[in-house]
């Protein structure tokens, strides 16, 4: 069987999402870095894998996939390991988890991405943040976290009583935002704080962080 490959950029939350899924399932793979600054994602050969020029791209058993959430869903369903599945096989329970995967996508990610750009990206480039954009994004994120706080009074994890992709899909932005003052918004909500600490301390996640941090050096 051909080796699994992940083409990506370690600064990209989408690439980290795919890595989280790969490590959680303990899959052997080769990581091929794509240099976005050098326009590597716009070359003919990359576009033949990912027509929108997006990272990451995942290859496995004859399949070539792009879009990190599609990669995550494929890995979750293809590599089921009884007792450690990141998905519920019962449709009704899986429906609930699927709802919270989409909540991350449509409600959490937009303000989180704005804050990542303003507070992480710009800082790296030595550029000043736009305070209005930050304030607006924080206000949106607060509303989302209030919903999460309420949700997590009913279940230990967002998707239900076990850790699933609904939680995993949040890890990239949690990783970036916990290194900024926005951290406080998570810490001042007890259920959210407990949930964050729990999922960020998963051993497989530490391996992703190690890989990302090494690249920064």
């Amino acid at each position, binding site marked *: 069987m051909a080796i699994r490959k992940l083409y990506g950029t370690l600064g990209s939350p989408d690439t980290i999402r795919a890595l989280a899924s790969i490590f959680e399932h303990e899959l052997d793979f080769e990581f091929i870095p794509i240099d976005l600054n050098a326009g590597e994602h716009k070359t003919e050969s990359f576009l033949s894998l990912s*027509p*929108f020029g997006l990272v990451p791209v995942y290859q496995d*058993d*004859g*399949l070539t*996939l*792009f*879009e990190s*959430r*599609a990669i995550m*869903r*494929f890995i979750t*369903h*293809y590599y089921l390991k009884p007792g450690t599945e990141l998905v519920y096989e019962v*449709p*009704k329970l*899986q*429906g*609930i988890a*699927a*709802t919270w*995967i*989409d*909540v991350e*996508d*449509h*409600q959490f990610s937009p303000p989180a991405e704005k804050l990542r750009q303003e507070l992480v990206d710009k800082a790296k480039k030595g550029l000043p943040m736009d305070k209005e954009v930050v304030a607006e994004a924080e206000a949106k994120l607060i509303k989302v976290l209030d*919903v999460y706080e*309420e*949700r997590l009074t009913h279940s230990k994890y967002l998707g239900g009583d076990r850790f699933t992709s609904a939680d995993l899909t949040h890890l990239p932005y949690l990783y970036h935002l916990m290194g900024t003052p926005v951290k406080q918004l998570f810490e001042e909500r007890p259920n959210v704080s407990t949930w964050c600490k729990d999922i960020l301390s998963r051993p497989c996640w530490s391996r992703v962080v190690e890989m990302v941090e090494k690249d920064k050096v």
Partner: protein
Amino acid sequence: MAAIKVHGSPLSTNTLRVLAAVYEKELDHEFVLVDKSAGEHKKEHFLSTHNPFGQVPAFEDGDLKLFESRAITRYIACEYADKGTQLIYQDSKKMAITSVWMEVEGQQYEQIAAKLAWELVYKPLLLGMSADKAIVEENEPKLAKVLDIYESRLAQSKYLGGDCFTLADLHHLPTLHYLFGTQVKKLFDSRPHVSAWIADITARPAWLKALAALQSQQ
């Protein structure tokens, strides 16, 4: 009383998305009108019972309560796999390709299409205002680029996910419907594979029933 309830509003593309799946699966259901003009979707009862983000649609199947239209359609496709049209593949690898194009709809297509639909359809209809030309001029070329990629994809397979109609195609129907009544139609018409795909999926009887059902609520 039907076990399945769809809570939604007229003119809501997200509501239409769920209804399209419900009709493809031929499911008995009850439509519960949410009066957005009266702010019903932002009131305590709706927020605590149906969708804490105050959006339509919301969905019930017995005790199960869901929101987010694309999570609802996935649930319907899985739970009722044996009924009506197959909307997903059971084979994991075939499903993976469909999943990619479902994400493309949500991440690459929808945001641009929704901006254009807002300017060219909703603003005139709901607010009596004309479209912001700058926004339209910015987003038409972006949609054209996305549709170029769709054109290549649909030259390789009849539907976005593969040989069969799936959620990857269905999810496009609501905004396609609204954009077809605008100047944006030319972007679809000028691409033969895209044009043929649209003609095919918009003629589906279940889609026509879903449209009629929601329009009868207006």
